[in-house]
């Protein structure tokens, strides 16, 4: 096969998978709005994403937990945190889920929350540009003068205090900014880092690396809005259903699709069990 033929075939594949018009319809499962209980979720693959089967690991867990209690929910995945904020403030959304979606002080409403997954996050940098620039000793002060690519909604006071510049971005852009050198390091759940490197940066994934000793745990949660008339009822139903799926093996079987290490699956289950007591 000649190079030209190969390029032409790649072009055809791209043509077949990309919509033709930027103003055309996008036809999703939410084509016809339903009266189902709507939950707004912030995109973060492989946990929550339209690019992952069943909307991602956590979308599936939430849907299955509710179905144990015979409740139907529609999970609407949005790309921007500003959209989550809009739905809470302007439309009194029933529930939202995701990483860094709620800082209680931002809202006049109160939430009841449940952790869905305890994510292990780590700093990541791009080796070709930063090999001799980053020397992390466990303290933020060792990263002084660098630029941190933060997620929208993330609390960044500690970074600013140590004279670390902060640029907020969405996850995919963070990786692009690492490559361009406009940020020096980022922090994301390890599962998300692996997903982005495999799906979007497979050619140069070896150039991205975790910073040793920077692991921290951050739960990804679902938040029920108690100002919404159905918030309390749905929170109680979710808690009951979630507890059931941790006992009947459904939670584990969903986790096992994404995590092959049995001890990690077990420690997730223990964490969720404790949080539901």
């Amino acid at each position, binding site marked *: 096969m000649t190079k030209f033929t190969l390029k032409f075939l790649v072009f055809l594949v*791209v*043509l*077949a*998978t*990309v*919509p*033709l*018009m*930027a*103003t*055309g*319809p*996008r*036809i*999703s*499962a*939410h*084509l*016809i*709005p*339903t009266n189902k209980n709507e939950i707004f979720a912030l*995109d973060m693959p492989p946990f929550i994403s*339209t690019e992952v089967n069943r909307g991602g690991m956590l979308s599936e867990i939430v849907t299955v937990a509710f179905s144990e209690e015979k409740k139907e929910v529609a999970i609407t995945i949005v*790309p*921007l945190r*500003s*959209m989550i*904020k*809009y739905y809470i*403030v*302007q439309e009194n959304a029933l529930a939202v889920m995701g990483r860094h979606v709620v800082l209680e002080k931002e809202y006049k409403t109160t939430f009841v929350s449940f952790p869905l997954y305890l994510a292990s996050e780590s700093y990541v940098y791009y080796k070709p540009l930063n090999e001799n620039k980053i020397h992390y000793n466990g303290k933020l002060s060792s990263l002084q003068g660098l630029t941190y690519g933060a997620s929208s909604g993330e609390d960044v006071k500690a970074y600013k205090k140590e004279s670390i510049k902060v640029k907020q*971005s*969405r996850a*995919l*852009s963070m990786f*692009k900014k690492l490559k361009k050198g406009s940020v020096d390091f980022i922090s994301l759940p390890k599962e998300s880092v692996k997903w982005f490197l495999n799906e979007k940066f497979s050619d140069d994934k070896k150039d991205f690396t975790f910073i040793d000793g920077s692991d921290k745990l951050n739960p990804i949660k679902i938040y029920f809005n108690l100002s919404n008339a159905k918030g309390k009822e749905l929170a109680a139903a979710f808690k009951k259903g979630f507890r059931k799926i941790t006992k009947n093996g459904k939670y584990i079987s969903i986790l096992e699709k994404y995590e092959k290490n049995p001890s990690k699956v077990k420690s997730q289950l223990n964490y969720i069990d404790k949080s539901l007591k």
Partner: protein
Amino acid sequence: MRKLLALIGFIIVCNLHALESTDMTVVLDANEAPPFFSASMPHDGMVGEIIYEISKASNIKTIINYKPLSRMIEDDSNNDLGNPAFFINNQDFNSIIPIIVYHMSFYYYSNDKNKKHIKIESLHDLKGSKIGVLKGSLINLLFFKNQGIVFVTSYSQESLFKKLRLKRVDYVIEVEFVGEFIINKLFPSQKDNFKSIKIQSNHNPIAIMLAEDEKDVDIITKKYREGLEKIIENGTYQRVINKYFPEQEITSDWLKNLNKFKELYNFGEEL
């Protein structure tokens, strides 16, 4: 001395005036999507003309640069025109300025005058139907397959409506403005046989999306937003829409939806 002061004053006034009247030039990438955008239509089509009027009102020179959609999406440093949903997964924008909001509709063909209008209230009503859609617009095929709905895809909107006319599909899902435009173009004498059902609450915006690294991006954003407000207030916006769709009124619902998207993409920022 007085003469010198007068001269300095004159120079300052002239420079201020020059600064005010200086055109800023902004390049926005778009793809061929008549009647919204098309290089072959006067002022680049309906949305192209709205942008032309916004630019005139805000003293900005705007150039619409046509590209294939895949290249617009891949480029993460450009300014884009279109539905933000196609772009914001791949690019962080400094600002998103919605220009119009459109609805999607189900179109069907019926020349039986006695036949009652069809109602589509849930996906269950579509079970067993063949639906024509534009290639690439389907997000979750498996979900629809499980609902017993069959999709027939096509590379062009015109071909979708030809299939509908020949009853090779039961419905076509299309943006209402685009559907009307194509039916009028292809089947002017049969246009009353094409019926549409508007999908309520399913609306999307067409917006100007300005890149993070665009020079003077905050000034441009402010000017575009003010320009849009100006042309809505002085009736120019309504006049442009009516050039393409004479019966379309700019209702309070239209403006409410436009405002919703303006807030949705920028919530928490001072607009």
